[in-house]
C-alpha cells in the first residue's frame, strides 16, 4: 500500500487517522492540532486567568501525564501565566499506587513542577490496603471515591491553589453520561458534562481534555514517548462501569463520532429546576469543616464506621441505625483534621459555560 500523505501539510507521511474527523495526518500536524484543540477548549471556557495557581491531579496514568505535559507546553506557548503544580493522592495500595507514584516523581523532574503527595494514611489514618482488609472487596470503591475527592480538595488547599485540573477525557465523560442514564441519575446527568464545576467551599475543578479522545491521548503519549504507568487498580471491580466502557468502545469502533455525539446529547438534556432542587442544600460538616449535605460529611461517616469496626454503617441505612443505636461516637476515634478552604471562594454553586 502506498504511503498516505498528511491531509493537513500535504508533505509528510500520514501516521494516524483521527477518530473525530477521519483525517489522516502526520505526527507533527497531530501534535499541533491536538494541542491547539485543548488550547481552544481552555480559551472558550475561560478556564484560567493570569496568575492562577493550578494543581494537576496526577495519578501517573496516561491521561494525567499527557495533561501535565500539554498544560506545561500551552502555558509556555500562549503565556497563560499559570503556576502549575502536581497533586497526587496516595491511596495506599501496595503494588499499584506505590509504582504509579514513582512515575509521578519522575514527571516532577521531567516537567520541573512542584509535587505534593497526600496520603489517605496521613489524612484519614487508613490506607486502602487496611480498609480492604476490614471491609473486603465489595464496597471498597465507595470508600476510595469519597476519600479521594476530599483528599484532592485538601491537597489543593495545602498548595493554596485556585484550581484543580483533571485528566478526564471525552471517552470518560461519554461513559459517565451513559452510566447516569442507565442509573436514572438525572441530576448528575445534568452536571456531568460541565467542563468546570465548583461547589461551595470546594476548589474549582475542570477538565481541559473534555473533547480529547482517549485514542489521541494514548497516541500522543506514544509518539512523544511520555513516561506513564498503566495497570488497573488491583481493587477495582466496578463491573457496571466496565460494561459501559466496553459498550462505548464497540460503538466507537462502528462510528468514531459516537463519543462526541453522546457528550453532545448529555449537554442537550434540559434538566428541570425541580430535579436540580432535589440536590440537598450544602452545609459544613460539623466534625471536619468540609462541605457536606448532612451534619456529617460522607468521609467522616465512613471513617467513623471504620474506626468503630462497623464499616457498613457508611453504606447502608440499616447499618447506620445499628451504629447510632450504640450511642454517639466515642471521643477517642480518629477524625479528619479541620478543613480550612482557601479564601476568596464564592458561596454559591456556579458552573462556567462550556
Amino acid at each position, binding site marked *: *500500500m502506498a504511503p498516505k500523505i498528511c491531509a493537513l501539510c500535504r508533505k509528510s507521511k500520514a501516521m494516524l*487517522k483521527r477518530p473525530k474527523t477521519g483525517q489522516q495526518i502526520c505526527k507533527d500536524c497531530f501534535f499541533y492540532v491536538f494541542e491547539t484543540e485543548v488550547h481552544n477548549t481552555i480559551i472558550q471556557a475561560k478556564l484560567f486567568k493570569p496568575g492562577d495557581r493550578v494543581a494537576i491531579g496526577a495519578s501517573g496514568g496516561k491521561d494525567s501525564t499527557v495533561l501535565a505535559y500539554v498544560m506545561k507546553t500551552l502555558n509556555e506557548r500562549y503565556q497563560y501565566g499559570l503556576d502549575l503544580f502536581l497533586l497526587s493522592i496516595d491511596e495506599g495500595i501496595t503494588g499499584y499506587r506505590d509504582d504509579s507514584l514513582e512515575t509521578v516523581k519522575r514527571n516532577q523532574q521531567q516537567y520541573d513542577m512542584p509535587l505534593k503527595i497526600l496520603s489517605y494514611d496521613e489524612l484519614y489514618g487508613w490506607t486502602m490496603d487496611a480498609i480492604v482488609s476490614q471491609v473486603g472487596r465489595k464496597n471498597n470503591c465507595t470508600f476510595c471515591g469519597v476519600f479521594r475527592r476530599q483528599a484532592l480538595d485538601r491537597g489543593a488547599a495545602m498548595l493554596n491553589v485556585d484550581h484543580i485540573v483533571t485528566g478526564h477525557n471525552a471517552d470518560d465523560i461519554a461513559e459517565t453520561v451513559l452510566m447516569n442514564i442507565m442509573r436514572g441519575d438525572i441530576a448528575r446527568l445534568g452536571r456531568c458534562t460541565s467542563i468546570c464545576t465548583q461547589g461551595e467551599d470546594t476548589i474549582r475543578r475542570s477538565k481541559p481534555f473534555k473533547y480529547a479522545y482517549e485514542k489521541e491521548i*494514548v497516541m500522543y503519549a*506514544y509518539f512523544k514517548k511520555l513516561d506513564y504507568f*498503566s495497570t488497573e487498580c488491583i481493587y*477495582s471491580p466496578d463491573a457496571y462501569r466496565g460494561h459501559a*466502557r466496553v459498550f462505548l*468502545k464497540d460503538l*466507537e469502533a462502528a462510528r468514531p463520532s459516537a463519543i462526541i455525539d453522546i457528550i453532545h446529547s448529555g449537554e442537550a438534556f434540559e434538566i428541570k429546576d425541580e430535579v436540580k432542587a432535589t440536590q440537598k442544600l450544602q452545609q459544613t460538616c460539623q466534625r471536619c469543616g468540609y462541605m457536606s449535605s448532612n451534619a456529617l460529611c460522607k468521609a467522616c461517616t465512613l471513617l467513623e464506621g471504620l474506626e468503630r469496626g462497623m464499616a457498613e454503617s457508611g453504606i447502608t441505612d440499616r447499618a447506620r441505625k445499628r451504629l447510632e443505636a450504640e450511642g454517639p461516637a466515642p471521643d477517642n476515634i480518629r477524625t479528619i483534621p479541620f478543613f480550612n478552604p482557601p479564601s476568596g471562594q464564592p458561596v454559591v454553586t456556579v458552573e462556567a459555560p462550556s
Partner: protein
Amino acid sequence: MSQLSLKVEFGGGIELLFSKKHTITVELPALVPTDDSTDDQSLMEDTAKEKKPANLAYLVLYLRDRLLTERAELFVENGTVRPGILVLVNDTDWQLEGEGDYELKDKDNIVFISTLHGG
C-alpha cells in the same frame, strides 16, 4: 522458504496478558495456512495446507494462540483485536495500513497499546 522476523511490542497494560513482556521477537513463515491454523505442524514448510502471505490479522491470532498467557477475550474479539486496543505498524496507525489485511514484511515493528487502562 523465507521467514519473517518481527519485533512485537505491548504497552498500556496489554503486556499483562503476555507474561508482562514489553517486547518480543516473533518468527513467522512468509506464507501461512489459509485456514489460519497456528500450530507447529501447520507452519511446517511441507504441510499440504493451502498458503497465503502472512498478514496482521494472522499475527493477532498467532499471538493469541501461541503467546497469550491469560484472558484471551481481553485481546481478541470477533477475530480481530478488541476495540480500545491501538495497533501501530512501524509507528503508523494500522487504520492507515489496511488493518488486518496488511501484509507483514521482514523486520516490521508491530505495537499493541491498550487504551482501556486507568488514566
